[in-house]
């Protein structure tokens, strides 16, 4: 990149964003996108472990076919809690609100987001709704599953359905505000010379995600509001007793909740593109194609929701339409996988922890993707719908995909966020454990699914036990892999080596400022003159320093 760096001559002269203020007020009332990003990081980490605790209990209960660890009602509350917390309070906000918040303005050369106060409001709404949700999920719980299907949720469930729905409703505002902020920022606050096709793919990904957030979330809000009214009044728009159609709820719900899957996976794709380019020392293969693929996934993702409803009694004609669209949306995803692989071709690949996570992502995402095709195929879905096959499929995408990418991004940008390096060996170990543990946990569930074990069963026929035990054993590896980073990343905050401004010799504006970045990101507004990922050609590579391990 022909961009000069924008590090102040004496970096001690300018305060970085962490040292700009110290009191609790300087955090709680901050409008700095970097601080808010960190605060979101704290929040989503908290919710990740809440959701993870529920998952642990579920897997423990399933060790035994009779499910004697917890009562059926308790089990139902656990998987509802796992679903609600993981979907709305971890997966959807994870990458956008933390890495997106922190790096979007940095990567486009802006001083902050367009609406910093809205950004802070979004964090408060997020926490308020999260705490509300967790509180009601703990006291009494909710026994509807995260999907809140009517008429179970509106008329029959006994738990705290109303407060939980309200929490998700409020969470939606947080999501919309964040998405709106990102869209406006990307449009209006790009640095001079930062044209659309000079944007890093992570920015494209966050932009596409934000579009989905602002256009899908309101429908969920309306759906939950209508469901809540039905529960509150005892009669409502989905009530079969007056001729209402329970499938209408599902249409509206999945109009949000299917695109929501793309809210989870698109940012992950963005992170992985950055990481693979950096550690293969090559521009992302087919950059424009990758950007178009992100946008088309975001748009076509709205045409496929009905594939959650093939066996529900929806019109068969609709089923055919939705299945067709689901196959179409898989094409851009396939393109992305091919392009990542092509990026590796003739690169200078190193296997730092972020790269290991990213390569793991590509593998797991592919497995999740092709099994997605299996369940998108109409007749196969008749058998596989609502079995563990579906559970395995979407965990491959969301946990294998999104969470791996989240960790990839977290490690990749850790030096920029904190100014410290993480311990490489521990991080590689965690990355390998994640991949191994993940496959052990969820691959057996494909088999369980085809054998016909339905989801949301607290007890199951004994012949399925061996696969369930295998799955639970894998989950224990996964648990270690997720707790490990908490320890060594925490350690690195105090004892990690100081990172320079660009420890990976990466391109991108975020590496052109000091680590941690100064309060307003850049001392001088950068001017961009070239495309992203300008990693040197192999011929000139010899000039680069051999060991990229940065000096302390």
């Amino acid at each position, binding site marked *: 990149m022909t961009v000069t760096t924008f590090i102040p001559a004496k970096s001690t002269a300018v305060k970085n964003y962490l040292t700009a203020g110290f009191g609790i007020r300087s955090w709680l009332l901050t409008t700095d996108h970097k601080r808010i990003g960190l605060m979101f990081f704290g929040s989503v980490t908290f919710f990740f472990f809440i959701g993870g605790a529920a998952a642990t209990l579920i897997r423990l209960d399933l060790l035994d076919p009779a499910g004697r660890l917890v009562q059926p009602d308790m089990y139902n509350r656990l998987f509802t809690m796992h679903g609600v917390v993981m979907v709305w309070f971890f997966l959807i906000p994870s990458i956008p609100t933390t890495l997106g918040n922190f790096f979007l303005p940095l990567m486009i050369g802006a001083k902050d987001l367009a609406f910093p106060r809205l950004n802070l409001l979004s964090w408060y709404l997020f926490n308020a709704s999260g705490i509300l949700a967790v509180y009601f999920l703990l006291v009494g719980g909710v026994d509807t599953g995260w999907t809140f299907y009517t008429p179970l949720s509106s008329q029959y469930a006994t738990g705290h359905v109303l407060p939980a729905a309200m929490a998700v409703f409020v969470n939606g505002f947080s999501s919309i505000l964040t998405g709106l902020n990102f869209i406006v920022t990307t449009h209006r606050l790009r640095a001079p010379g930062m044209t659309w096709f000079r944007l890093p793919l992570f920015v494209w990904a966050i932009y596409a995600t934000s579009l989905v957030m602002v256009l899908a979330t309101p429908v969920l809000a309306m759906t939950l509001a209508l469901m809540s009214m039905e529960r509150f009044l005892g009669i409502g728009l989905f009530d079969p007793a007056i001729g209402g159609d329970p499938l209408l709820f599902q*249409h509206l719900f999945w109009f949000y909740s299917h695109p929501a899957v793309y809210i989870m996976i698109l940012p992950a794709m963005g992170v992985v593109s950055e990481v693979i380019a950096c550690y293969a020392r090559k521009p992302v293969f087919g950059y424009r194609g990758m950007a178009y693929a992100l946008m088309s996934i975001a748009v076509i993702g*709205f*045409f496929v929701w*009905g594939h959650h409803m093939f066996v529900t009694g929806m*019109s068969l004609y609709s089923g055919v339409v939705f299945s067709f669209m689901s196959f179409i949306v898989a094409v851009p995803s396939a393109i992305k996988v091919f392009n990542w692989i092509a990026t590796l071709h003739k690169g200078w690949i190193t296997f730092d922890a972020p790269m290991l996570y990213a390569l793991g992502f590509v593998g797991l995402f592919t497995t999740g993707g092709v099994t997605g095709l299996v369940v998108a195929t109409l007749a196969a879905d008749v058998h596989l719908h609502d079995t563990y096959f579906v559970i395995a499929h979407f965990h491959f995408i969301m946990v294998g995909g999104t969470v791996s990418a989240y960790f990839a991004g977290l490690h990749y940008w850790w030096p920029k966020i904190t100014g410290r390096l993480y311990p490489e060996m521990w991080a590689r170990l965690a990355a390998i454990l994640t991949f191994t543990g993940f496959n052990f946990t969820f691959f057996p569930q494909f088999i369980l699914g085809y054998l016909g074990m339905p989801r949301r069963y607290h007890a199951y026929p004994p012949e399925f036990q061996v696969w369930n035990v295998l799955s639970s054993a894998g989950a224990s590896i996964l648990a270690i892999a997720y707790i490990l980073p908490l320890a060594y990343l925490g350690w690195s905050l105090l004892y990690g080596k100081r990172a320079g401004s660009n420890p990976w010799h990466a391109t991108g504006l975020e590496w052109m400022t000091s680590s941690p970045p100064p309060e307003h990101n850049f001392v001088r507004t950068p001017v961009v003159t070239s495309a992203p990922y300008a990693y040197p050609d192999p011929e000139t590579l010899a000039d680069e320093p051999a060991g990229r391990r940065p000096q302390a």
Partner: protein
Amino acid sequence: MKLGGQIVTFVIAWAVLLLLLGINVLLAYQPIGGLHGFVPIGIAATQAFIIMAIFMKLRGRPSLKWVFAGAGFFWLMILLGLSSTDYMTRAAWPL
């Protein structure tokens, strides 16, 4: 305040909107058969178009505002269009 060209435009738009409202109410009582569900929606769409173009200042050079104003309605059409494929054909199949 000077009575400029803009104000005249606003007032004309307002008058047209009221006129359309009048037509809508009058047509409601005419026997127009199967159209009675569509005509009011068509008139409402026209009114909405006028409000957005003139009162919300969308007319003029193409701009980003068009994209997002259009996006809301385009996505609404996805929702209505695809969900109605179900409601239009649910009774028809299985044959």
